[in-house]
């Protein structure tokens, strides 16, 4: 077999692919913001040690991690949308239901993983650190803010990056409900031109570049924080 890229490099195909990349990045950003915000809330709730609340969060995390992403996407798009108030669903339908429900599904699903990452980060800080903070006269909140969280955050960067990468690639699942993201556009071009190998090779390269950029960003962040620590 041989590669012949000229067929997909001419015509509208590259611009289709770039449109797809844009949708993928937007979806990724949208879902990540939902996931991270919710994960912070879930983690804080879990730290309160109020039993019923902790139980609810634990149940949420279990469900979020056990149900396949594709099913979560179908659930939000086809089922949950009909449970929402009609006016809300109408409004979403008028904007872009595929994108929004996919983003919600990814965000809520990924929040389960991220909250576990944040929780284990906090648990990795020895309790003596808190005691030391309190002994120095800091209140609970100040101890958290100045002693525990900065250290916990550094510990969570590598796994956080891991799940961020996973989310970036998993946005392709949204094609099942017709979100015109990168893999969707790839399959569309494949279907039109039958230049299967060429177009998938190109898309692989795009995903690889995106993932590498994310990895490098993570590395830089980690190094930045480490330097801060050694500097103070």
């Amino acid at each position, binding site marked *: 077999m*041989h590669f012949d890229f000229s067929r997909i490099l001419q015509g509208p195909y590259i611009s289709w692919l770039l449109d797809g990349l844009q949708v993928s990045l937007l979806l990724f950003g949208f879902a990540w913001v939902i996931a991270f915000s919710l994960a912070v809330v879930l983690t804080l709730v879990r730290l309160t040690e109020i039993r019923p609340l902790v139980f609810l969060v634990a149940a949420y995390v279990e469900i979020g991690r056990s149900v396949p992403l594709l099913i979560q996407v179908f659930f939000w798009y*086809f089922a949950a949308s*009909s449970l929402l108030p009609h006016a809300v669903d109408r409004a979403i339908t008028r904007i872009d239901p595929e994108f929004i429900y996919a983003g919600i599904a990814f965000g809520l699903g990924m929040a389960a993983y991220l909250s576990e990452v944040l929780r284990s980060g906090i648990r990795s800080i020895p309790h003596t650190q808190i005691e030391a903070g309190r002994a120095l006269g800091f209140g609970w909140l100040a101890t958290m803010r100045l002693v525990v969280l900065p250290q916990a955050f550094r510990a969570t960067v590598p796994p956080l990056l891991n799940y961020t990468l996973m989310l970036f690639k998993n946005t392709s699942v949204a094609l099942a*409900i017709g979100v015109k993201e990168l893999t969707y556009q790839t399959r569309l071009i494949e279907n*039109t*031109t039958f230049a299967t*190998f060429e177009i998938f090779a190109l898309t692989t390269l795009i995903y690889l570049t995106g993932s590498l950029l994310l990895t490098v960003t993570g590395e830089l962040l980690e190094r930045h924080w480490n330097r801060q620590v050694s500097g103070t």
Partner: protein
Amino acid sequence: MTLRSLSAALALVVIATGPALADQLADMTARGTLRCGVLSVANPFGFQDPDTREIVGYDVDFCRAVAGEMGLDAEIVPVAVEARIPELQLGNIDILAAALGYTAERAEQIDYSDRYFVSRQVVIVAGDSTVASLADLDGLRIATNSGSSNIDYLRNQVPGAEVLTYQDTAAAFLAFAQGRVDGVAISELGTMQLRQQGAIEFRIVQDPLRIEPWGLGVRKGEASLVAAVNQAMEAMESSGQVETIFNTWFGPETPFHLTRGFTVGPITQ
């Protein structure tokens, strides 16, 4: 010495990656089999019989008959929509009988046999919709399943429509039933199956999206294989085999009650 081993390695790479030089038809004759790539989720073309667990359908019977006419044993290989072209190009299958609609652009990547089926592609809309012709679809959201040639036809015929593709036809129908899309592009056979289920109220837009000829797919550049397949198909047409296979799946005793509106012959568009 280093140079020699380097060039030897290079030669190996060239041999390994170069196009297969052998003639596919000769390979098949030596092997005694015709490997047919068919779909396994496309009732009534290629699908799993719930009782026997075997892949059956119009495409399957047609490919078996072509093999028989060529004096070969048919080997039925189920392929996924996304994998069908790579399977063909890598030589894992000899021909593709997989509901393959002909478009000029696709024909640049693979060769098609003569037509062995003609599908009428239509658009359905809600029973109370005001859409009267394809032109009225402008600005509406139309669903179809991924991997379908309808995507192209919609884009060409109704550039103003927003095309959404779903995982499969069932998901597209669900979106239609829930009012997320205004219509579904589908084959006329599909509308008959949908009508039998009776779950969704719909109307067919009168002018067809496309009258689509289907061909068997052959890897590019296998002229002798295409010729042999076409010859077999012609023989099947004159012996009445095509008619028999058509009636088995679409004839008066099937839920479709169709009469054949095409004959085997060159695709001319």
